[in-house]
């Protein structure tokens, strides 16, 4: 039978099918960070178990790290967690990119940079945004701490086979509508549980036209639609990205050429069957802004804050609770919603292309009075590249705060947080209550939209700027 991309990767990784019908799946790369791993390492110690494949396990610290002075971690509990990861990596022989490393960064940004993320492989991490790596045609999904321990001990995971869901983005989005708008549109269409139990495969002209950065943005937010993994079939864009820079763990030379030949077979057969499919016309997608407390609560920037009872998939009470938390009145145009803070960062939108786009909007402009703007590169490599291109100067001249790399205000485990009632235009992935700080109000947008909001002090339809 004709296989989907997912089925091809799955079949290559089934060690055996267990008597209960689940598959024992082999894991090619295990990425580890400080928050979801300490209890897993402790579990190994208590059971007297070792790490089966330290050579396939790679760690960094990203969630807790300060983005100003990273050598002084003032929060002693954060410092203890960071130190625990360093200790565990030493004890179990795992490669660690720590705060002194020029390779440190958000785990989902450094995986592709290092060449750890490769087509056709399996990648897991104790982090739901592991779906990011699917942009390379990699089966990548987030796991809990018990599963982290399981992979450390066995390099395998017993898994029930998920269903397949093809999402086709037909036609091309109209500039400056971006990958972030496409994925928010999908989540708004199918809901935050619409992809639960499925692996999404993104296809269509819009996906083919996207850069790797854009594909990573889309796959990253698969989990916000409930899907543990998202996939894009690798193509010339993928191969060029992998070849463009020195990536220490990617194949080199003749092996790389051989790899490309085999990667070219990694696509769904034209007549392969998916359990579900959906087509969205990318040319019709407008810039998106969330108004509520989950990523499915989203409208076009030209839209208004909705009336309770008028939002498909959400009950009246859901919308009322969300609007009360967000401090928004039904009927308000999104473009008149004012922001206090702008966050440009996270595993969704802190790669070099995202920073170039934001800098393009901010160049020669000034941040609106009273608006705080944090620009947090996703990795030290992204930071260095941005500085080589003088983007840091563009941000600073506009009045933004240029930071060190980390997860930062996406979830505020470090000191970068919103205060109660503060409203933020954020390029991150979750607008949950309190996500960026207790009482903080998050609106998810693209880097273009975030940068424009920083200048205007409120949301603007960035398409009207691009026309000028």
């Amino acid at each position, binding site marked *: 039978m004709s296989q989907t991309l997912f089925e091809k990767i799955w079949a290559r990784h089934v060690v055996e099918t267990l008597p209960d019908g689940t598959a024992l799946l082999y894991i090619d790369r295990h990425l580890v960070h400080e928050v979801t791993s300490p209890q897993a390492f402790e579990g190994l110690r208590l059971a007297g178990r070792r790490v089966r494949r330290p050579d396939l396990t790679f760690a960094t610290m990203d969630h807790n790290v300060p983005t100003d002075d990273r050598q002084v971690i003032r929060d002693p509990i954060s410092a203890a967690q960071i130190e625990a990861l360093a200790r565990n990596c030493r004890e179990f022989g795992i490669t660690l990119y720590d705060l002194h490393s020029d390779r440190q960064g958000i785990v989902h940004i450094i995986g592709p940079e290092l060449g750890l993320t490769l087509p056709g492989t399996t990648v897991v991490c104790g982090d739901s945004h592991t779906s990011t790596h699917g942009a390379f045609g990699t089966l990548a999904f987030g796991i809990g701490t018990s599963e982290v321990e399981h992979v450390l001990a066995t390099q395998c995971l017993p898994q029930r086979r998920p269903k397949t869901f093809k999402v086709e983005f037909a036609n091309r989005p109209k500039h400056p509508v971006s990958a972030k708008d496409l994925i928010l549109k999908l989540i708004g269409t199918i809901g935050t549980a619409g992809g639960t139990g499925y692996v999404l495969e993104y296809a269509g002209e819009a996906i083919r036209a996207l850069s790797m950065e854009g594909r990573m943005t889309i796959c990253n937010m698969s989990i916000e639609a409930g899907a543990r993994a998202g996939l894009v079939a690798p193509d010339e864009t993928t191969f060029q990205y992998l070849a463009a820079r020195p990536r220490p763990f990617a194949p080199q030379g003749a092996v790389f050429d051989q*790899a490309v030949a085999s990667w070219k077979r990694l696509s769904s057969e034209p007549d392969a069957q998916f359990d579900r499919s959906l087509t969205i016309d990318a040319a019709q997608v407008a810039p998106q802004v969330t108004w509520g407390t989950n990523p499915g609560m989203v409208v076009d920037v030209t839209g208004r804050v909705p009336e309770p009872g008028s939002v498909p998939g959400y009950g009246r009470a859901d919308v009322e609770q969300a609007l009360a938390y967000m401090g928004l009145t039904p009927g308000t145009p999104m473009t008149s919603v004012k922001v206090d803070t702008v966050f440009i960062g996270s595993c969704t939108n802190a790669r070099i292309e995202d920073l170039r786009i934001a800098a393009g909007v901010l160049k020669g402009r000034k941040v609106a009075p009273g608006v705080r703007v944090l620009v947090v590169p996703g990795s030290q490599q992204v930071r260095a590249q941005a500085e080589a291109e003088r983007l840091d100067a563009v941000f600073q001249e506009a009045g933004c705060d240029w930071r060190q790399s980390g997860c930062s205000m996406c979830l505020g485990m470090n000191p970068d947080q919103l205060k109660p009632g503060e409203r933020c235009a954020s390029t991150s992935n979750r607008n949950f209550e309190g*996500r960026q700080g207790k009482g903080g109000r998050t609106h998810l947008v693209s880097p273009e939209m975030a940068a424009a909001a920083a200048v205007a002090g409120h949301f603007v339809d960035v398409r009207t700027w691009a026309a000028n």
Partner: protein
Amino acid sequence: MDAFRSHRGTLATLNRANVDTDQIIPKQFLKSIARTGFGPHLFHDWRYRADGSPNPEFPLNAERYRGASILVARNNFGCGSSREHAVWAVLQDGFRVVLAPWEERGGVRVPAFADIFRSNAGKNALLTVELSAPEIEEIFQLVDRFPGLEATVDLDHQRVTVHLPEEVSFHFEIEPAVKERLIHGLDDIGLTLKRDAAIAAFEARHDPQLARATTR
């Protein structure tokens, strides 16, 4: 892992859809390197006021739910972050079971629980039970009418029984593999380690860099 066979306890309802793991256990509690101590922080930002006192408007703080051990929730419970701390918090605050409804939207079945939460729950003997939306609605209404209402969740027979003068029962489905592990309290990692020969044989023929059969 602890086993789960049957549990009788008080029902408590949480009338919100899409409860995410950031609400179940906020980020500031994820800095712990221990597996315990999360119970008091379950639903922290809803449960407590700014001064740290219990928020009287949060339903689970009601006297009638004191000691409750079966949580009745709405669709898509546990969405968002993969943090297993969310499951630990639910368990450590005294809950053994979460009931939630699957829903049908546009001809598609939307599961009751987010995927990673459900998986994490299974590893910790927190039973997640999926019922239909009308069944969960009926339980919500019964809990409303009868303070202190108890139920028995029987995994062997895949049955939730609400203890009214006349008992009301609901059948539920569960993956056989998950049921087996829960009933026997099996150690997942131990089971996989028994497959060591198969894993080693796979590793001998698999190149993890290129995820293909090795030519050696």
